[in-house]
């Protein structure tokens, strides 16, 4: 068992325990030590973490590089925003409908995109996301146009056993976002560890071979695209609650780039990686902008150093570091198979 693969399988099997331990600590911390960093930056990290994790269902687990993932993030934000502003639909129902709406949009757009491969797939997802952006800006009566959904999102207090909780208070919103993030993480973990997840990884490694095993690679890619869209819708809905509205910025292509970099920094071989990447990127920006408006220079330098020296996601233990020289893969000595076959003749 080579050192790297052992490490990776350990991380992959234990990421649930690590994730739950971290979540438990994060849940209790603000109750004992009132840190405003957690209550203000925390939700933003969690929302972007779920968004990056949703992208990783495609990027790390199915090998699909989407440049337009913000379309479904924005769809979730606008669905929740419109429902809660203009109809009597409650918070829970709006969250579910936001996820469903985003997944549906992903099904429609995904149907076209999964027909193309590699760079053409990426470019088509970008094109469709920008078309969604144009529609959002033009549909002023529904979406508020380029001004966005203004007027705030009314969130009535929720009865939780003896207490009535005002969800707009920073602590309540933090705990709500944290619990939904944990739920999304566990559901995603079940999905990637399922037999369906196994075939996603097969599609990532070699889509053609999957066709020869009797499964449709395109069908699997589309299902990954829709699942990722659904989770992105949840992240978008939570962002709408965080800012109290939905804005075209949530559908613009720069919002699609953010999760890509979070997955790269955090690591693409686990589900926890993107969450770590979100914490690093959002956390760093929040801290740097406190000291200088030249945050681009500082963050840019850090990213350059990261790309050239670490060369792999933070949680990608044992993943193959790409080598700057095309070192030929070492000739691997036969392990079993043919050698053993010779003896058993």
């Amino acid at each position, binding site marked *: 068992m080579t050192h790297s693969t052992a490490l990776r399988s350990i991380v992959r099997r234990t990421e649930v325990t690590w994730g739950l331990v971290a979540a438990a600590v994060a849940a209790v911390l603000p109750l004992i030590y009132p840190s405003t960093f957690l209550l203000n930056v925390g939700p933003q990290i969690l929302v972007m973490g779920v968004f990056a994790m949703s992208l990783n269902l495609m*990027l790390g687990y199915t090998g699909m*590089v989407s440049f337009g993932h913000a379309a479904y993030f924005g769809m979730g934000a606008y669905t929740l925003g419109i429902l809660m502003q203009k109809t009597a639909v409650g918070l829970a129902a709006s969250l579910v409908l936001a996820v469903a709406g985003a997944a549906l949009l992903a099904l429609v757009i995904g149907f*076209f995109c999964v*027909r*193309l*491969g*590699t*760079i*053409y797939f990426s*470019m*088509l997802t*970008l*094109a*469709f996301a*920008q*078309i969604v*952006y*144009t*529609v959002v*800006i*033009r549909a002023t009566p529904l979406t508020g146009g380029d001004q966005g959904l203004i007027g705030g999102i009314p969130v009535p207090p929720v009865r939780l056993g003896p207490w009535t909780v005002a969800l707009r208070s920073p602590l309540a919103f933090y705990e709500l976002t944290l619990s939904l993030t944990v739920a999304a993480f566990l559901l995603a973990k079940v999905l990637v560890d399922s037999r369906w997840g196994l075939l996603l990884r097969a599609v990532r490694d070699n889509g053609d071979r999957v066709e020869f095993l009797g499964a449709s690679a395109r069908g699997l890619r589309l299902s990954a695209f829709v699942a990722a869209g659904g989770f992105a819708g949840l992240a978008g809905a939570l962002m709408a609650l965080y800012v109290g509205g939905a804005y075209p910025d949530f559908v613009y*292509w720069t919002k699609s*780039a953010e999760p*890509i*970099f979070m997955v*790269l*920094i955090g690591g693409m071989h686990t589900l926890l990686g993107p969450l770590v990447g979100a914490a690093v990127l959002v956390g760093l920006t929040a801290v740097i902008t406190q000291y200088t408006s*030249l945050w*681009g*220079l500082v*963050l*840019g*330098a*850090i*990213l*350059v150093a*990261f*790309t*050239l020296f670490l*060369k792999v996601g933070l949680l990608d233990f044992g993943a193959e570091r*790409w*080598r*700057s*020289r*095309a070192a030929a893969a070492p000739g691997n000595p036969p392990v079993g198979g043919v050698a053993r076959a010779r003896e058993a003749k």
Partner: protein
Amino acid sequence: MDLGAFAQCVSSTLCVVSQLTSALITGLILFLVASGLSLVFGVMGILNFAHGSLYMLGAYLSFSLLRLNFGVATVAAALGVAVIGLLLERVFIRHVYRAPLLYQLLLTYAFILVLDDVAKLIWGYDFVSMGVPDAFRRPPIFIGRAPVPAYYMFIIVVGVVVAVGLWLLLTRTRFGRIIRAAADNPTMVAALGVNVAAVSAGVFVLGSFLAGLGGVLAAPVRSIFPGMGFSILVESFIVVVIGGLGSVAGAFVGALLIGFVRAFGSVAFPALEEGLVFMLMAAVLLTRPRGVLGVGKEL
């Protein structure tokens, strides 16, 4: 949708000529930047997000070299950007040739952040305007009854000359043949004893020169500010995709196509113009993924 205006415009020579010239102007500047992007991607397989920042640096450098006469300033600024491109390639990009595509994007995205702030430090956070050089401050030239400013004629001439020059370079010179071969099969070219590292550096410098030249030509007529490379980056991606990934001829056709859609689109569909370009891109991707000319890279 304003088809009445569109029909009326197409019927009058004045409207057609002037919209045609404006299509040429936007198209040619876009071609200079997009051809650089396409060349770098075609030969080196690198999607350079920072290409827009090189366009910005070209504009800033020509603004700073304003004291020299315009011709010298133009070439000097474009060469300056070429040198910056060489530095970026030799110090950083050379390490990511074999990196997965996404790590190249992360690195070049980081360049955007750094270069925009560097521009802000050197030339200030506010926009600056260079103004058209005095040699071109004269009444517009008239083609038929359509006015075409002298400076725009200059852009059209330079744009066409550079396009033809680039085409000749790629098809007639040895360096051009090596570039096209490297675009097709870098490993084989290396096997033939060609120093691929030098070719890659050369191509990146050429790409940077073209982006810088685009910035230099645009500087006198557009306001210059940190981050101005952003919008032309997205448009260049569209051009490269529509024209065909890695193909310079495709980039020429794609750039002019975008120029026409912008010029005549603003007449026919004033409100939709932004989405129109992306619908065109989606249509090309779905019907001819390898680009309008079908010469894009087979991936």
